[in-house]
C-alpha cells in the first residue's frame, strides 16, 4: 500500500520532533539542567513514529525507560514532557516521575517504565480490559531486545495469546542491553521467532525504514482490532547514543566507532528525506521549514519548563493514595 503525501510528511515530522527533542535533552543534560537519568532515543525514531501513526487516540501504549519517542509519537505535549524532565510541578507527573515514567492515560500512554519488561503484562491487561469492555481499542507494547529474555515477556505473550487479546508486542531490537550485545544474550538472531512458541505471527522489519514499520505495524494493529489476536513485531534498529547520557564514551567501550558510524549512515530521517525529495513529495525548503518550526516548538517547551515552579515540599505527600 502506497502512503499518501500527508502520511509521509506526518511520519517525517514526528521523527524530526523526536530527534530534536532528544538532541535538546542531550545538550541540557550535558549542561546540568536536566537531572537524573536520560536514555535517549536518537536513531530509533522510525519505530515509534511508524507504529504510533497507526494508532487512534483511544488506543493504548506502554513504553520503556527509553520512552520519549513513543510518548511523543502517541501525541504527548512537549512542554509537559520537558517540564517533567526538569522535575517541575507542571510536568506530566508533577515532577515525580521524570524521564522514565511519563504517563498520560487521557492520550492512552499507560506509562513509560523503568523496569525492563515491566510494561509487558500491563499492556496485556489493558488489552484484556478493552476486550472485556467491548471496545475496539488496541494496545501497543514497546520493549527492548533485553526485555525479551525476561520472564514477563513469555508470561505476557502466553496470556495474550491464550486469550486472543488485541495487543501488538513491538520489540525494538537496538542490539544492546546496556553494554551487552544481543549476540551475547541471545543465540537467536531474530527475536520474532519467539512468537512461534505462543502461536502468534512474528515479523521482523527494518526498524530504520519508517515506511516498512508503518506498514507492518498497520497489519498487526488491524489484526488486533479485528479480534484476531496478538502479533510480535521486531524492529531492528540502533541507538546512536550510549545507554544513557553519561554512559562512558557514549558506549564506545563495548562497540566500535565503525559500527556506530555505519548505523548513523542508515539514519531513518535521512532515509525518508531521500524518498520525499526523490519522489518530489516535498521540496528541501519544505523539509527545512519542518525542522525550523519543530525547533521553535522545542524552544517554547524549554522555556515553559524553565519558567515553571518546582514542586513544593508538601507535594511530596500527595498522590501516594488516590
Amino acid at each position, binding site marked *: 500500500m502506497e502512503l499518501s503525501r500527508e502520511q509521509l510528511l506526518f511520519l517525517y515530522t514526528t521523527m524530526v520532533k523526536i530527534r530534536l527533542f532528544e538532541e535538546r535533552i542531550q545538550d541540557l543534560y550535558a549542561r546540568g539542567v536536566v537531572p537524573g537519568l536520560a536514555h535517549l532515543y536518537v536513531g530509533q525514531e522510525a519505530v515509534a513514529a511508524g507504529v504510533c501513526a497507526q494508532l487512534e487516540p483511544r488506543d493504548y501504549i506502554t513504553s520503556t525507560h527509553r520512552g520519549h519517542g513513543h510518548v511523543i509519537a502517541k501525541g504527548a505535549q512537549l512542554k509537559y514532557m520537558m517540564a517533567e524532565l526538569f522535575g517541575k510541578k507542571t510536568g506530566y507527573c508533577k515532577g515525580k*516521575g521524570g524521564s522514565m515514567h511519563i504517563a498520560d492515560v487521557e492520550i492512552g500512554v*499507560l506509562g513509560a517504565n523503568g523496569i525492563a519488561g515491566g510494561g509487558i503484562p500491563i499492556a496485556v491487561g489493558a488489552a484484556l480490559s478493552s476486550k472485556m469492555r467491548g471496545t475496539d481499542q488496541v494496545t501497543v507494547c514497546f520493549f527492548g531486545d533485553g526485555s525479551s529474555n525476561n520472564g*514477563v515477556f513469555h508470561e505476557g505473550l502466553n496470556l495474550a495469546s491464550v486469550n486472543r487479546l488485541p495487543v501488538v508486542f513491538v520489540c525494538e531490537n537496538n542490539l544492546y542491553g546496556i553494554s551487552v550485545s544481543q549476540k551475547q544474550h541471545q543465540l537467536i538472531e531474530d527475536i520474532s521467532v519467539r512468537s512461534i512458541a505462543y502461536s502468534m505471527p512474528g515479523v521482523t522489519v527494518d526498524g530504520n525504514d519508517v515506511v516498512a514499520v508503518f506498514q507492518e505495524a498497520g497489519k498487526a494493529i488491524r489484526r488486533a482490532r479485528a479480534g484476531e489476536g496478538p502479533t510480535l513485531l521486531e524492529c531492528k534498529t540502533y541507538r546512536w547514543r550510549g545507554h544513557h547520557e553519561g554512559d562512558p564514551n557514549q558506549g564506545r567501550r563495548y562497540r566500535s566507532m565503525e559500527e556506530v558510524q555505519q548505523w548513523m549512515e542508515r539514519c531513518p530521517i535521512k532515509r525518508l528525506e531521500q524518498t520525499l525529495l526523490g519522489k518530489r513529495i516535498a521540496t528541501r525548503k519544505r523539509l527545512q521549514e519542518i525542522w525550523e518550526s519543530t525547533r521553535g516548538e522545542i524552544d517554547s517547551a524549554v522555556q515553559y519548563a524553565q519558567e515553571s515552579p518546582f514542586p513544593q515540599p508538601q507535594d511530596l505527600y500527595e498522590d501516594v493514595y488516590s
Partner: protein
Amino acid sequence: MRELTYAQAINEALLQNMERDERVFLMGEDIGKYGGIFQVTAGLLDRFGPQRVMDTPISEAGFVGAAVGAAMTGMRPVVEIMFIDFTTVCMDMIVNQMAKIHYMFGGRGKVPMVLRTNIGAGRGAAAQHSQSFHAFFVHIPGLMVVTPSSPYDAKGLLTTAIQDDNPVIFVEHKKLYATKGPVPEEFYTIPFGRAELKRKGRHITVVATHEMVNRTLRVAEELARQGVELEVIDPRTLRPLDQETILDSVKKTGRLIVADEGPVTCGIHAEIAALVAEQAVEYLQAPILRVGSPDTPVPFSPPLEQIYIPDEEDIRDAVERLRAYL
C-alpha cells in the same frame, strides 16, 4: 444472624460485588471449576462465566501485571495468589508497578485492584507454602494492607477493598477459612484504618492480627479469672493503621504486647512498638513485648511446625513476663 465460614464470607463478598459492578472480575490459578485452592471462589464460575472468573496460566507476574493494566483502564480486578509465598515471583509487579504507578505518574492513573492471598503455617506444607510475610507489603507506600480476623470482617473489608481506588493487598489466613461466625446477608463495608476493640481490659494492651486475635481472646478469658485483664485490639488494616485506638489503649494500660504471626524481626510488631515508643513512651510502665514467628523458615515436621507457630502459650508467656510490672 446466620453463620458463614470465613471462606464463604469472602465468596459472598466477591459474588455481591460482581453482581453490583460489572467492572469487577477475578483472575487466578485454579479459581474456576476447582473453586480456588481453599474453595473461596467456589461456584462463581457457574454464576459469572469464564470471562469474569478467569483461570490463568501459572504466571503470577504475568497476571498480576495484567490486573494492573486492566485496573488502569477501567476494570476492577480481584486477583488470587494461591499462597503469599508465591507473591515473591511477582514482586516487581506488586512493588514497582501496582504500588507506585499512581504516585510515579503524578496522580495520572489509578490502580483499583485487589490482590487476595493468605498466610499461616500449620498445614504441614513446609517452607514455601506457609509463610506469613504480610509485613513486606506494609513497608511499601502506595499499598493498602488488610488482615481480617473474622468472617464478618472478611466480607465487609473485602467489599471496601474492591470499592477502593487504591491497590489493596488482602491477606487472608489459612487457618481461618473454616472458622464460622455471624455474617449479615446484606451488602456492607467496613472502613479501612479503624481498629476493633475486641475486648476491654485495664492491665495490658494486646494488639493482635488474624488468628492471633482469637488466640489472644482465649488467653484473655483464662487470665480474667486470675484477675489480669487484657485489652485486645485488632487493627483489621495494617495500612492504614489505626494509631489512635492503639495509643489510647496503651495510654490507659501502660503495657503493650503485639501478637502477629509474621516473623518478629522487622515485622509489624516492630512498627507498632516503634509507634508507641515514639508517641506514648511516657505512658509505658513495662517493656513492649512481641509475639510472632521465630527467625527460621517454616519447618515441615509436625512437632517442629507446632513450635514454630506462635500460639496461646507464647501469649501467656509474654503476659507472664509483664506480670512483674503490674
